[in-house]
């Protein structure tokens, strides 16, 4: 415990002097101390350490920061073709998947805000990609897209779409994770699958907060579905949509799990993203310095997102104050 329990007597003694711990100015910082120390020591300090790593020559074998090498790591990283590909993939995967998520999340939130039979089951199933540990869910995808035993391939074969002389070519398998375009598509689909529930439930919270009388008034005035969508739902939902998108973007942009479990960056680094490339260089390759330099390329976007969120939070806070 952070603060020693003072005066825990079972019978309340009438307090005569004021206890030091009764003062807000003493108790406040004391109560905050454990959490703040934890965050400073294991988030703040490592962040600084990441920067120091990136400018030094540390490796797994020699993790002492003794020699600073300037921008050497960044230069080496930048001149690596795989890195360029990873940077490009990170941006493209995130953009495409989040545009799809934004559209689908609006649809899905609308569905889940209606009443229908089996809604609880649908909600449970729809949320599964977010509520289950991501590594385990992606293992399911990995097996679903297996090169030989994929049930999707079987279905395509049965439908006459796959196999000799058919639409998808002579092979009897698609090799989803073995061909560049298919593997990249698969990664994007799994990103959509994973972040859609998060964006949806955030939107849903916004949707249920639209005052019922506004919707009733619109109904009485005869506003149809599209009119309500364009003039009522979207404008009122805009701030919460921004929040949903920002969060989902953070998770997609910095993801390492999907990249590692589904494709391990393959085929031939074609689905490598910054996070996975940092892992392969820094941990597997043992070059902590270059790994840190690669990961630091994520920072500008993250800072921008954090600022956007602070603004959103401040704006809603200001409205509350009015």
């Amino acid at each position: 415990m952070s603060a020693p329990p003072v005066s825990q007597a079972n019978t309340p003694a009438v307090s005569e002097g004021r206890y030091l711990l009764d003062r807000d100015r003493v108790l406040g910082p004391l109560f905050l101390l454990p959490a703040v120390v934890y965050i400073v020591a294991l988030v703040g300090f490592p962040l600084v350490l990441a920067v120091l790593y990136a400018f030094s020559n540390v490796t797994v074998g020699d993790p002492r920061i003794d020699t600073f090498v300037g921008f050497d790591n960044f230069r080496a990283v930048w001149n690596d073709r795989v890195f360029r590909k990873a940077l490009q993939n990170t941006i493209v995967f995130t953009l495409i998947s989040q545009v799809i998520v934004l559209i689908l999340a609006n649809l899905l939130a609308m569905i889940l805000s209606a009443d229908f039979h089996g809604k609880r089951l649908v909600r449970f199933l729809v949320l599964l990609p977010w509520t289950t540990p991501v590594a385990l869910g992606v293992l399911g995808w990995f097996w679903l897209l297996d090169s030989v035993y994929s049930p999707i391939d079987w279905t395509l074969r049965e439908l006459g779409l796959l196999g000799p002389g058919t639409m998808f070519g002579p092979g009897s398998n698609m090799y989803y994770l073995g061909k560049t375009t298919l593997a990249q598509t698969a990664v994007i689909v799994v990103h959509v699958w994973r972040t859609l529930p998060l964006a949806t439930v955030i939107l849903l919270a916004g949707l249920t907060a639209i005052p019922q009388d506004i919707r009733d008034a619109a109904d009485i005035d005869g506003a149809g579905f599209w009119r309500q969508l364009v003039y009522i739902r979207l404008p009122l939902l805009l701030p919460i949509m921004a929040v949903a998108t920002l969060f989902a973007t953070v998770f997609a942009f910095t993801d390492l799990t999907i990249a590692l479990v589904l494709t391990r960056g393959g085929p031939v680094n074609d689905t490598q993203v910054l996070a996975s490339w940092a892992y392969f260089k820094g941990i597997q390759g043992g070059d902590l310095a270059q790994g840190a330099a690669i990961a630091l390329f994520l920072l500008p976007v993250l800072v921008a997102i954090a600022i956007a969120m602070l603004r959103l939070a401040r704006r809603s806070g200001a409205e509350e104050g009015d």
Partner: protein
Amino acid sequence: MATAPSANSAKDTAQYKSHRVFGRTMLYFGATFFAMFAAMPFAWMILTVFKADSDLYDPANNPFIYNDPPTLANLDLLWNETNYRTFLLNTLIVALAVVLITVIAVVPAAYALTRLAGRWGESLGILIFLVYLVPPTLLFIPLTGVVADLGLQNSKWSMVLVYPTFTIPFCTWLLMGFFRSVPWDIEEQAMIDGYSRIGAIWRTVIPVSLPGILTVVIFSFTLTLHEFVYSLAFVQSSGEKTVSVGVFTELIRGDVYFWQALMAAAALVAFPVALLYNYFLDRFISGFTLGAVKG
């Protein structure tokens, strides 16, 4: 805003009805589509668990049915011939330790931010919450160095040390939401009755916020089970691994995949976690809306 009030004629009613039927059909169609998309890998997972080798590894077999009778042999293999039980035990130890650390740090912090810090408490709370968004991807490399310096590499205690870095920020924010709705009169009344501040907190605030603290427990537990990146980076020896990494690295060996056992291992953890999470999800989301939605 909406205009043109419609005339209330029979034609309009009929049109309204057909619109409604169309709407309902689309609703069910959409709901089914999304449910299937989300559940697809899990359905395939569960179907696989009970399949015999002879059934599973024949590409000509219909994969959606049991061509050979379903079997429990795969579960037996997973339970008795792999390190799965060790992974489960490690996961449990790590999760419980993380929950404990989180609760100890978060309860006083959230109280201080809602009750003692005044106007800047809310801003500081948001700042702490944003720490939750500092991704493991950015931290796992320097933290690998830190963990090594502390002599914790290859030990499950490295995860116990590091996981609170994301549970504390998130749960502080979560609990602040609870504390905001506590009626403070009862605390003041307890102090008037002669309790010290801490005595009053212990006797009034804590009991009233037990649902909030329970939510903190559930979330730090599930977030710990979800984590993958840190444990992958910190722990290499099989005896110290948790489920999410152990399953991924130990049950796939070279070209030999124990698919049924692998899927069983994933499903056995994924579904209980999903049930827990699902039950508390609304709490989770209210933390995520950043006050952009007033509940």
